[in-house]
């Protein structure tokens, strides 16, 4: 029941915002913030009462949707999906708070859609039936389309069409795969459906997730969408929505298709390695701050996929930890990019520079996040990347070498972006009267940074409380009992 609450509380909040006669930004945005904070409290309760020692699904709800084809509304949380749901809620809190502070136009539509997006994303992380999973996966698309299209930048139109068509092509192929998989097995219930050796069905799923993540070469939609979306929507998109794809790889493609995963491992690892290096190189050459974050996001998603497809304890743990890390990092970076853009009206690094002078808080926060992002030893991202590389090393040392090179590249692009914004000569777009981070902005971003620092001290907070501590066994038994 609790999971159902987690999914539908934001959606009901969205309906309330749409139908109540709220007059102002503060009312609509305030209500949205209240709802998502209540959601956060609910999640904290769920995490506190979660039985980490027990394998299998918890907070489960099942009710028949239509019996003829064996489809039911079944939701619940595993230990690892609990963390991803928490990530979703945390990033949503930050994004909604930031949106309220910025004061988006047409607030009722805007905040309703943000809440709807949060609910649908939690739905993806908790669905235990293929069709329910698919419905939530598609439901994320609608609010994103509108949020980017209406509140986005000047080229938002082209960006949204590209984004939607790309993802829909993938997800429709996934629908074909779902129908085939479910009818073959006679049920769509993921806890009972078992495994399959069909390469075609596996590819139907894998391509959909590869587009959504994105994995090279399916990333064509990414730079435009991330650049044109409002900062906080980019934060949701890259921080949370992309994680649904990584989660899909882990939860459906890898665990239910062990044979094809084995067969396709080299292909997928190759593509992801190319994407890892390619994204990092492009991030290094981007002219604008958001471009850097966008392509680094491509690179990081490829790294997560590499970790997952190692399919061993270290790789899976690393992939999961890195999902949470990257979600927090990229959300924080996009929000910071938004803060910078609001002050200077540009993200063009040629026009920025010298912002650290007189703005100590902005400089400190940006540097802290940046340093974690480049995986400095001791940071949570370091822990995640180390586990990923350690895991994939077992599958061939070559993959690990590529990964290590990419980490060096990450340091290059991150430091370049930080210094281009904060240090060097004062750029033409920067003036002394532009203020430091305001308390509200800090209030949105700082919690994300705090969680990152916390995970830096205690990455085991996640890795020791996931997959019932035996990732490879959990995946091979479809998370039921090792």
């Amino acid at each position, binding site marked *: 029941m609790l999971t159902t609450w987690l999914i539908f509380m934001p959606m009901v909040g969205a309906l309330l915002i*749409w139908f109540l006669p709220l007059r102002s930004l503060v009312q609509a945005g305030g209500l949205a913030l209240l709802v998502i904070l209540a959601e956060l409290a609910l999640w904290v309760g769920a995490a506190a009462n979660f039985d980490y020692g027990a394998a299998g699904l918890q907070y489960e709800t099942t009710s*028949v*949707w*239509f*019996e*003829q*084809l064996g*489809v039911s509304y079944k939701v619940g949380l595993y230990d690892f999906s609990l963390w991803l749901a928490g990530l979703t809620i945390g990033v949503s809190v930050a994004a909604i708070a930031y949106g309220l502070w910025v004061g988006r136009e*047409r607030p009722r539509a805007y905040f309703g859609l943000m809440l709807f997006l949060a609910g649908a994303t939690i739905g993806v992380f908790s669905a235990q039936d293929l*069709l329910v999973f698919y*419905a*939530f996966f*598609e*439901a994320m*698309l*609608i609010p994103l*389309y*509108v949020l980017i*299209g*209406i509140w986005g930048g000047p080229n938002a*139109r082209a960006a*949204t*069409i590209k984004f*939607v*068509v790309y993802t*829909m*092509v993938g997800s*429709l*192929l996934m*629908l*074909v795969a779902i*129908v*085939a998989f479910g*009818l073959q097995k006679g049920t769509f219930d993921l806890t009972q459906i078992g495994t399959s050796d069909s390469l075609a069905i596996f590819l139907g799923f894998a391509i959909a997730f590869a587009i959504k993540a994105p994995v090279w070469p399916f990333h064509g939609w990414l730079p435009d969408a991330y650049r044109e979306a409002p900062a906080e929507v980019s934060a949701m998109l890259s921080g949370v929505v992309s994680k649904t794809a990584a989660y899909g790889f882990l939860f459906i493609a890898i665990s239910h298709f062990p044979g094809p995963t084995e067969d396709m491992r080299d292909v997928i690892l190759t593509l992801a390695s190319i994407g890892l290096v390619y994204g990092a190189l492009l991030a290094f050459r981007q002219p604008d701050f958001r471009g850097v974050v966008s392509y680094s996001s491509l690179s990081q998603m490829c790294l997560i996929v590499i970790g997952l497809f190692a399919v061993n304890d270290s790789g899976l743990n690393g992939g999961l930890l890195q999902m949470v890390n990257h979600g927090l990092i990229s959300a924080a970076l996009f929000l910071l990019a938004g803060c910078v853009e609001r002050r200077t009206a540009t993200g063009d690094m040629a026009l920025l520079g010298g912002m650290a002078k007189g703005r100590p808080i902005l400089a400190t926060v940006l540097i802290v996040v940046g340093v974690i992002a480049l995986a400095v030893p001791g940071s949570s991202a370091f822990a995640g990347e180390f586990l990923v590389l350690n895991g994939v090393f077992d599958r061939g040392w070559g993959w690990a070498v590529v990964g290590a090179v990419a980490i060096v590249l990450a340091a290059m692009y991150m430091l370049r972006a930080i210094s281009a914004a904060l240090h060097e000569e004062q750029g033409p777009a920067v003036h002394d009267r532009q203020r430091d981070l305001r308390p509200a902005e800090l209030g949105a971003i700082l919690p994300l940074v705090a969680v990152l620092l916390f995970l830096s001290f205690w990455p085991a907070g996640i890795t020791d409380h996931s997959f019932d501590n035996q990732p490879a066994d959990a995946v091979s038994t479809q998370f039921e009992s090792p």
Partner: protein
Amino acid sequence: MIDTPTIDWAGLSPYLVLVVGIAAIMLAAVFVRGPARNAAGAVLALATLAGAAAAAIVLYTKDETPRGLIADALVRDRLADLTHVILCVTGILVVLTFFRERDSVERRGDSYALVLSAIGGMAFFIAANNLITLFLGLEWFSISLYILCAITVDRSAALESGLKYLIVGSFGSGILLFGSALVFGATGEVSFSAIAEASPSADTALLVTGLAMLIVGLGFKASAAPFHQWTPDVYEGAPSPISALMAAATKVAALVLMLRFLTTAFPEDAELWTITLSVLVCVSLAWGNLGALAQRNVKRILAYSSISHAGFLLMPIAAGNELGGTALLFYLIPYAALSVGAFAIVTLRERELRQPVTLEGMAGLGWERPFHGAAMAVFMLGFIGLPPTGIFIGKFYAFSALYERGWVWLMIIGAVFTAVSIAYYLGIVRAVYSRPSRLALAPAGGSPPRDLALDVAIVAALVVGVGTFFAVDPLVNVIEDAVSSLPYPF
């Protein structure tokens, strides 16, 4: 003493209610004058349709065994009853949409009578049990629609639409009739089940040619490509509520009859007609979706969308299995609701702007009228097949039926063209939520008064369109009972 067939009056009750309703409306139009005439006609039409639907529901619940009516010329089974309910509810939504149509109030009595007549013809058509009643039903509803298209005689576009539909439609009917003649020539039978029995010993060339021509004739009515050329022009010119009637109800009638006719009369040639239909699916999907991309007029976009949906709806018939029957009926329900809803929004905008509604004309609707804008967005997203609308489930069922048949390739084609369709459906959503252009289309004569009837139709369309996403199980149970009586070849 002439031997007369026994007539099952109870089984005929839905038709009788409709026919009596038509007469009542015509009489009311004679006796009631002025503005009350419109209200009287509408109320009578709604009551008649509700009565016919109620009669069909009673028949559905009371009697599960199929039986012939009037010497087996018609068949009464649960499939017919369920389809009658769908047609009547669609008719109710259309009447509500039509209520405040500004033109030709003088002829309003005739309009409602003709809408009922069209619905009645379709109801007759889908219950046809031999080639003669099939053709009679087809002509009955087609002639009503020809007139309805041109009912606003002061608009040349409407006249053009009616004339085009008349010519092309008659051509289609002609082909269908010719095909019937060939099938009769080959088998010596007119009754569907007798054709099935006689076909193994029949002249194959004659029979197959006849079958092909019958499929072409039905394809015309279902506006499946390549027999769709009339659709965009006719939908564009006809009064929008009538376009809604054609998009929703005609499609229901043509496709349900196609399912009944092909499975009952041609089980021997199932391989042949399923493959033929799968070709029609591909052509309809390609033509409808690609054609829609080039349009600016919203009614033309909806017309092409209806062509592409003909493709999706033919999929389950092409699958030729019982799951396909369930899929077809399930898909038709949200599809009909969304179609009427979308045309209702266009109707509303048309009355406001007093000119054909283009994408530019939709601009700003979402902000000026949040409810109507949001409804239009839901209808368009529903047509794509996104949750939470019933078409999502309909597509899922259609794909499942194809998978059971083993036609994964057709599923993939369906998926690809769904992706293409996103571009124009989202184009409408974008138009609804974009700002009005600088050449702002000022509403002529101020905003129209609130149209409660039309709003009710839109709400009902939303309720059906979204409700079918959630209440799948009860609906599927009803549909399964209805479609299980047909002899599926696969």
